[in-house]
């Protein structure tokens, strides 16, 4: 018994602070949040505990999912995610592909493509708010003015002020910021492919396309999956950029994370908690299988 304690004691002691913190702040709070989401805690008096909250089970979830307002947020989230994912994957792969073979000034290209990642969404939001100004023609500034200057007047549009597709405009700065990250992942992937593999394919007379199709793409697919998961889960949490470009009250560009903030600000804790749980479920559907899979692969 004492022996076992001496063996298990120190490691457990070393892990304990983090286990307690993560246990309370992640799992404990997720449970507490879920509990709140099942109550009718919709007013400031209830939020501060002056009036009791009553259990209403899944009413908040059903009401949210039935409301056109929240459906709009979910639809925006889907659109944003699709555009953000497609944009970063295409740009990231393209850049990595162009830089994969020795190129003069590679370091400069790589550093410039990656640098937006080091900037906060709030800071980049300041300049993108200016670039995505919806004024057109005489009044245009930002990108709309640039389109006029280069003779592409037809491309002028009202960016995030479009009710249905406004959210797509917000995905543009997000793509700007994270394509470099996807590029870095793909570059590492390319560099990880053994030269012999390409040699072998070349000796076999494989065409350039066949080489990509049968040699390089299969080798890159784990990287692509990582990139999809990371960008995807970032996309589902989209918040900072919207807050800084179009403000939370803007209907066109709202997503669940923004709704949660608005509910919280108006002391509607139950709905804020319900939105939080819905986001968690969406993220978990993506992340949990990935973590389990990674875990299993490591064991092999």
């Amino acid at each position, binding site marked *: 018994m004492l022996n076992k304690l001496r063996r*298990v004691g*120190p*490691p457990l002691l070393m*892990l304990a602070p*983090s*286990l307690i*913190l993560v246990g309370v702040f992640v*799992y404990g709070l997720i449970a507490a*949040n879920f509990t709140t989401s099942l109550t009718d805690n919709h007013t400031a008096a209830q939020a501060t505990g002056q009036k009791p909250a009553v259990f209403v089970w899944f009413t908040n979830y059903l009401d949210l999912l039935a409301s056109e307002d929240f459906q709009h947020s979910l639809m925006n989230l889907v659109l944003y995610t699709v555009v953000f994912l497609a944009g970063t994957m295409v*740009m990231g792969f393209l850049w990595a592909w162009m830089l994969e073979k020795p190129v003069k000034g590679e370091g400069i*290209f790589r550093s*410039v*493509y*990656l*640098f*937006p990642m*080091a900037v*906060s969404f*709030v*800071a980049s939001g*300041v*300049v993108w708010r*200016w*670039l995505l100004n919806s004024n057109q023609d005489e009044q*245009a500034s*930002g990108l709309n*003015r*640039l389109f006029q200057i280069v003779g592409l007047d037809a491309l002028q549009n009202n960016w995030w002020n479009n009710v249905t597709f406004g959210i797509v405009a917000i995905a543009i700065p997000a793509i700007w910021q994270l394509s470099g*990250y996807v590029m*870095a992942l793909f570059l590492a992937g390319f560099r990880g492919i053994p030269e012999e*593999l390409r040699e072998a394919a070349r*000796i*076999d*007379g*494989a065409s350039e396309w066949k080489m990509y199709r049968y*040699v390089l793409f299969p080798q890159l697919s784990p990287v692509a999956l*990582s*990139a999809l998961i*990371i960008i995807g*889960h970032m996309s*589902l*949490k989209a*918040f*900072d950029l919207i*807050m800084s470009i179009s403000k939370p009250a803007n209907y066109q560009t709202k997503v*669940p*994370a923004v709704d*949660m903030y608005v509910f*919280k600000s108006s002391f509607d804790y139950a709905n*804020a908690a319900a*939105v939080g*749980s819905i*986001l*968690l479920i969406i*993220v978990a559907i993506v*992340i949990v299988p*990935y*973590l389990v899979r*990674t*875990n299993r692969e490591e064991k092999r």
Partner: protein
Amino acid sequence: MTAEAEQLTAHRPPPVAPRVHKGRYSLARTLKYVGLIFFLIVVLIPVYVLLVTSFKGTGDADPSRAWALPQIWTTENWAMAWTTLAPAIGRTLAIVVPSSIISAFLGSLNGFVLSRWSFRGADIVFTLILFGMFIPYQAVMIPLTQLVLNLGIPTGVPTLILLHVVYGIPITTLIFRNYYSTVPHELIEAGRVDGAGMLRTYWSIVLPISIPSFVVVLIWQFTSAWNDFLFAVFFSSSQNGPVTVALNNLANGALLQNYGVSMAGALFASLPTLIVYIILGKYFVGGLMSGSVKG
């Protein structure tokens, strides 16, 4: 090698001399450089706008001059942005420095234990910790505000230090665990033979060789805490919060939009992380790679 690649090499046609199309090759090369430079310019457009606008005075307000260089270069915007944001930048440092160091240290402890000590369920513990990295923090925000209130921790700097430490644990643990799994077993076993306990082994053998990982983790934590807006907006105001909140307030709060000042402010707010990126870029990329779980 994958199944398809094997198939490809299975039935070998007679070796063919590499076909050389000199002309096509150099055309492709030129096209590639054109593409690279085109994207370089596209990525730098926002930087041009930030810099140019931050030096513009009110005389350049007309939209027709949006993309032109300033008629008169002025540093007024910079001065105003600095006086508005300087206190917030100080507070951000007060948040980011201690929280990065503490969470890096905790991550190193966890990473060591989880990479060296195999007990039943170690993988599950690790996966459970790791999941904390991916959760949308919206799913804990409501009870978190109540918890922080009940614990009596003041909003602003103290709360944000705590939160960056706690929610930094998963990623720091991941980076250190991946690093320690590459450390040769013999190195640590040598310590065991000397009869050193786990804690002693950690202090005298593991910690000294962890410097490279500490650099990666500290940079990662510094950058993400510096750029954090979500926790900041829930747990502080522009009076007691970090620079992201102050900047957002500066850019969106005023009735009259003064892009010159907010752009100068955005540059101030980004400068520390950009400097870190430029000087320590190699380690920055190291952190990015570790962020992709498999490291």
